[in-house]
């Protein structure tokens, strides 16, 4: 205070510094663990579904030249943070057969992650969110997307088509998994 005797000045300055130091010490002791706690999911796989191929349908059902089929991919089990759940839908795939053989595309739009639909009139894939469009061969035709549709690995076992779910990073022209 202004009327404080000058001799008190040094003592008060010490008290001020000490008070700030105590406050900073307490805040730091809380903030360090708090930050680590909040950032725990950044380098943790919080959702795991296994990378086994998922049985989809008899391979023979996919006829050459027929319109693409949208199939849901359901994981037999999933670990999501604390929970373990069965029969979890992971996403969908578009499957078709053309001259090059069987194709399986992720239905996740590589632009911003909406679910891609099929435009039967124009015979092309179209994303309902931002109008990105793709050919049946998965190539980019138009719209804001920077790359074509993302392929999903598949195989055939005992006559049945099996697709492996892959999470791709959305956005960008190069394809990366997450």
């Amino acid at each position, binding site marked *: *205070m202004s009327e*404080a005797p000058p001799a008190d000045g040094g003592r*008060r300055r010490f*008290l*001020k510094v*000490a*008070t700030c130091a*105590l*406050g900073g*010490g*307490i805040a730091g*002791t*809380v903030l360090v*663990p*708090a930050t*680590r*706690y*909040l*950032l*725990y999911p950044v380098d*943790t796989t919080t959702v795991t579904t296994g990378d086994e191929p998922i049985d989809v349908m008899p391979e023979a059902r996919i006829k050459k030249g027929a319109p693409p089929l949208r199939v849901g991919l359901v994981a037999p089990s999933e*670990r*999501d*943070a*604390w*929970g*373990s*759940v*069965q029969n979890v839908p992971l996403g969908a795939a578009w499957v078709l057969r053309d001259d090059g053989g069987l194709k399986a595309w992720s239905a996740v739009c590589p632009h911003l992650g909406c679910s891609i639909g099929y435009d039967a009139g124009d015979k092309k894939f179209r994303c309902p969110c931002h109008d990105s469009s793709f050919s049946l061969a998965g190539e980019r035709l138009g719209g804001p997307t920077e790359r074509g549709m993302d392929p999903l690995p598949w195989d055939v076992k005992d006559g049945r088509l099996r697709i492996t779910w892959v999470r791709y990073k959305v956005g960008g022209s190069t394809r990366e998994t997450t």
Partner: protein
Amino acid sequence: MSVRDWLDERTGYRAVVKHALEEPVLGGASLAYVFGSVLLFVLILQMTTGILLAFYYAPSATDAWASVANIEDRVTMGWLVRGLHHHGASAMVIVAGLHLVQTAVWGAYKRPREMNWIIGVLLLGLIMAFALTGYLLPWDQTGYWATKVATGIAGSSPMIGDQLKAAVQGGNEYGNLTLTRFFALHVFVLPALTLGLVAIHLALFRKHGVTPHWWKSEDALARDVQPFWPDQLFRDFVAMAVAFGGILAWTVHEHGARLDAPADPSSGFDARPEWYFRPLFQALKYFGGSMERIVALGAPVVVGGFLLALPFADKSRERAPQRRPIVMSLLAVGGLCVAALTFLSYREDAGDASLAERQVAAETRAQKARVLAELYGVPAAGGTSVFETATFYRARVIWAKSCAKCHEGDKREGPAIGAGYNTRAWIRGFLTGPSSELYFGRSKLADKEGAMKPVDYTGADLDALVEMVYAETGAPDIDAKKVARGHEIFEDDCSNCHEREVGKESVSAPNLYGRGSRWWLAQFIATPGGATFFGDRNAMPKIGADLSPADRDELARYITWLRVATPANVHALGDP
């Protein structure tokens, strides 16, 4: 113009800070005045850790326990954050108590500070409400059962008991709506009320200033004045650091907060409230019937009412405690009663050996649940279903309930079944002594007329016979030559009583086809007296017939596993 000048011109923040810090403290700064600040600090700590917990907590009956276990065992520093929140709640109660005692002794409830005293008492009630609602949120055994008692007390209120209980617990029974209610109260309603009352509490404190030392004259108070910043605030921060250090040290010492096994309404559990509700918990033991309700509902009303009425009952201007003997004695007696009841409650528990045993069992179960949750996650059914992720959980439950009595331990009446069942060694022992202690020795089949006789073979022939019986279990490590030799011996010597063609009814003893395999065991459990099994010589109770086919199969799967298990493997499964 500096950034600060620019900011001050637009906001006037300097005047606000100056006003906040430059409060004159009459009679000088004092350690006696730190409790309010420490309480505010712990409140901020509770809000910080509470918000952090909300990042990972799910208020649903199926997810709550699992999400808290996830915080404890998987999230980085999660145990510390939850521990600080849990023990911070205890610190709130302790510091609030000290604050109350200090202000009461200094006579802070007297004119002109009556309203601030009343708001302080209301805040104390809110702290207790925080404790009560927060205790349930982990949905573990302790929280579940202790809160059941609390809502039960609410349900015994006169006239509106049933409605009150249904309103508090969100329906006719504990479930999702109970948790969403307690969660909404704990994280939205109570904090909003608390912040509002704290704001008024602080504003009134600034209006009237600190309640000064009663032993100083007006002149001395005016002469010894010191500024709040830094003189008082330094003392406040020292006290905060001590409080924080205490909470942190205790949290580390206790390895965070307890998390019991998931709430299980079908279990028995020794519900104990947190330590600050122990006096009420203990008091209830001394009253029965309608008196119990009166005490449970009345005690908080009487204590709260006394504190609220204090400013109006003691209206003299005298603040020196030695000249207020009645109020000081009442406070002291009240404090002693609380301390005595708390002490008695803990002493009774400490003297109860069977309680200690049950608590150890509960702790073991809690640890098991935590380990399983971390390894396998909690199934969507939630809470207690975590135990079902344990290997052979279902089979072990059935085994303990229906099989162990006759097939394990001293009072056994049938053959011993455990690790090593149906191994070559077990089969050899059986063939050479079917009526010996570990086999039919204790059953009705032992040494009677028509009971199985020990085989006469030794050496390679006995090995062959053992291998033949062993092969029927479906074990993969079979010596085909020995089995073939075993079949020859079987035809010579065993086929008088036994069959080994699928489905063929035996003459007087079980058909050995597939004996000890999973499908054989599942069928045997269902009908031990069936024509291909023991027929009318069967002595095993028909318990298995009541089991579902899935349960019988699971049990059979477990029993076939015993063949490759060691006693340590079985022990590691633990008790279901």
